C-alpha cells in the first residue's frame, strides 16, 4: 500500500490571545508556535499503521512556508518515508481550490493506493481540500473517517465515517481512494526531540511554482474566495465574570450554584 498524506503546519492558538494584523485580513503569527495540524497528526499515524501491516511507502506533502519543514520532519520521525514541500511566496493566503491544485500537480507522478488528509485544518476551518483533491484525481473518497479496514482482496476498503449525534456509517470504497481523517481514529505516537533530530538530514524535496507548472500550462491558479476582513469576536459581553483571588471566585461561584440549582 503506497500512501500519500497531505499535511499542514498551523499556528497553535488554543491558549493564545490572538491579534489581527495591520491589513486586517489575517492574524499576527510572528510569536505563535506552529505544529502539525491536529487532524493531520492522526492521518500520518493512520498511514503508518497501514504501512506496518501491509508494507509500502509513505510520502508526506505540504503546501506552505519554509517553516513547514518542521511538520514534514515530524511526519518523517513518526515513520513517513519521503517528504515534499511545495513552497512559493505567491502561494501565501491560498484558498482551498489553489491548495488542492498545487497538491494535485505535485503528486501527479507519484504512485499511490491511498491518499489521506486531515478532515479539516484548524486555521481556515474549511474541511474541503481533501475532497477537492479527490475530484481532481477523479477517485472515490470518504470524509470524516474514523476507521479504515483493508479487505483481503487489497482493492476494497471498509471505512467508518462519523455522522452527527453518535451515529456512524459504514461504506465499502474501491481503491485507489482518498480519505479525510477525523481526530480520535487512533492514538498518534509521541515524537521525541531526539526523534526529530534523527531525521534532520533526511532530504525534503522542494518544489516551486516554476517546478510545478510549465510555461505552456494555463496561468497559475487563482483563489476564488476573497478574505475581506478578520476581527476578534466581542467576547465576554454576555458572561458575568467573577473577580478576585481563586478562593474569592470559588466562593462567589458557589453562591451562583446555590441560586441556580447547581448543587443537589
Amino acid at each position: 500500500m503506497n500512501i500519500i498524506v497531505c499535511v499542514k503546519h498551523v499556528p497553535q492558538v488554543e491558549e493564545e490571545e490572538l491579534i489581527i494584523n495591520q491589513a486586517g485580513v489575517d492574524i499576527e503569527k510572528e510569536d505563535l508556535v506552529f505544529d502539525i495540524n491536529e487532524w493531520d497528526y492522526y492521518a500520518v499515524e493512520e498511514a503508518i499503521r497501514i504501512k506496518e501491516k501491509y508494507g509500502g511507502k509513505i510520502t508526506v506533502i505540504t503546501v506552505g512556508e519554509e517553516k513547514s519543514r518542521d511538520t514534514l520532519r515530524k511526519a518523517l520521525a513518526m515513520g513517513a518515508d519521503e517528504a515534499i514541500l511545495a513552497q512559493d511566496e505567491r502561494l501565501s493566503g491560498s484558498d482551498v481550490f489553489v491548495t488542492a491544485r498545487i497538491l494535485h500537480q505535485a503528486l501527479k507522478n507519484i504512485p499511490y493506493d491511498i491518499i489521506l488528509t486531515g478532515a479539516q485544518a484548524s486555521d481556515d476551518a474549511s474541511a474541503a481540500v481533501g475532497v477537492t483533491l479527490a475530484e481532481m484525481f477523479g477517485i472515490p473518497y470518504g470524509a470524516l473517517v474514523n476507521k479504515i479496514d483493508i479487505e483481503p482482496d487489497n482493492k476494497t476498503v471498509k471505512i467508518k465515517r462519523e455522522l452527527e449525534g453518535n451515529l456512524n456509517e459504514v461504506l465499502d470504497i474501491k481503491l485507489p481512494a482518498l480519505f479525510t481523517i477525523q481526530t480520535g481514529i487512533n492514538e498518534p505516537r509521541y515524537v521525541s526531540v531526539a526523534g526529530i533530530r534523527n531525521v534532520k538530514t533526511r532530504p525534503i524535496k522542494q518544489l516551486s511554482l516554476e517546478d510545478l507548472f510549465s510555461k505552456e500550462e494555463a496561468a497559475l491558479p487563482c483563489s476564488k474566495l476573497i478574505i475581506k476582513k478578520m476581527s476578534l469576536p466581542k467576547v465576554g459581553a454576555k458572561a458575568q465574570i467573577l473577580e478576585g483571588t481563586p478562593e474569592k471566585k470559588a466562593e462567589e461561584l458557589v453562591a451562583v450554584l446555590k441560586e441556580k440549582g447547581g448543587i443537589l
Partner: protein
Amino acid sequence: MNQILVLIEHRRNQIRDVSYEMISTARTLADKIQAEVAAVLLGDDLNNFIPQISGKVNKLLLVEDKRLENYNSVYYQKVLSNIINERKPVLTFIGHTAIGIEIAPALAYQLDIPLASNCATLDYSDDGFIAHKRTYGDKIDTELGFKPGQIFMATLQQGAKIDESQPALTAEVIKVAMPALEEIEYRKFIEYIEEAAGEVDITQADIIVSVGRGIKDEKNIGIVQELANAMGGALACSRPVVDKRWLPKERQVGTSGKTVKPRLYLAVGISGSFQHCAGMKGSSTIIAINKDPNAPIFEIAQYGIVDDLFKVVPKLTEKVKEFKLVRN
C-alpha cells in the same frame, strides 16, 4: 427570478434541523435580493417530508429513486450538479455536516464555483454577499466575499438561528427525473452504526460538569470528577478528551456526540468550539472556567471565571462540600 437553492438533509426518516436553519437563512437573504427559495429533496420515498417543507419555501424539487434511499455522495453529486446547471441558483446552500463536507467541495470543483465552507451566517450588502465564519480555532471572525455577480455555494454550520416570524408560503412542488446513471460500484453504503450507549446517560442529568482540553492530562480528570460528585452532577466532556481516550464517547457533548439541556452546565477548561456549544447551548444556566479571557465559551456562558482551573476547581469542590455539610 433569482433563486437560492437549499439541499434538505434527512436521515433515517427524519429531516435534520440544519435544513430548517438553512431555509430560514436563505429566506432572509432572498428578501434582500428579490429571489425565491427552492428546496431540493433527494430520497426513495419523499411523501412524508413534503408537508414539513412545502410551507416554508417557494419551490420544492423532488428527486425520487431507489438509489437515493441512503445518502451516497456519488448519486447526490450527479443529481445536484444537473439541477444547479439547469437552474443556475445565485447561491446553493448545503449543511456543514457529514453530507455537506463531502458533496459541497466536490460540486464546487465540478461546477467551477467558489465554496464558502463552514459559515456561521451569510449576509448581503451593496458589495454583494458576505459569508461569516470562524477561523483559528473558532477565535477569529472572518468575512469572505465574492466577485460581483458570481454564483457560489456555501455550507452552513449546524445550530444557526431560525427566524420564527417568517410567514408561511405555499411551495410549487416539482418532480425532477433521476438522471440516467449506471450502478455505482466504487462506493457502497453498508449500514449505520450507533455508538455504544455506555453506563451513564448524560442527557438525563440535571447538573453537568464538563471537562475539556484544558485538563491537560488523563490523571487530572479526577479533580473535575470530584467536583461533579460534590455537586451531585454527571461528568461529561468535550471532543478532545474523547479523542485522547481519557473518557468514553458516551460522555461527549457536541454535534458529533450528545445534545444536553441540563439545569446547569459547568464547562471546565473547554474553549467552546461551535460544535461543542451546539450540543449544550439549550442548558438553563451555563458557567465557564477557562484561563483564556477570549475563549469563545464566554460568549455563551452567563457566568465566567477567568483563571487557572487547577487553582479554582479544588477550591470550588471544597466550598461545595462545606456548603452541603452546613445545609445537612
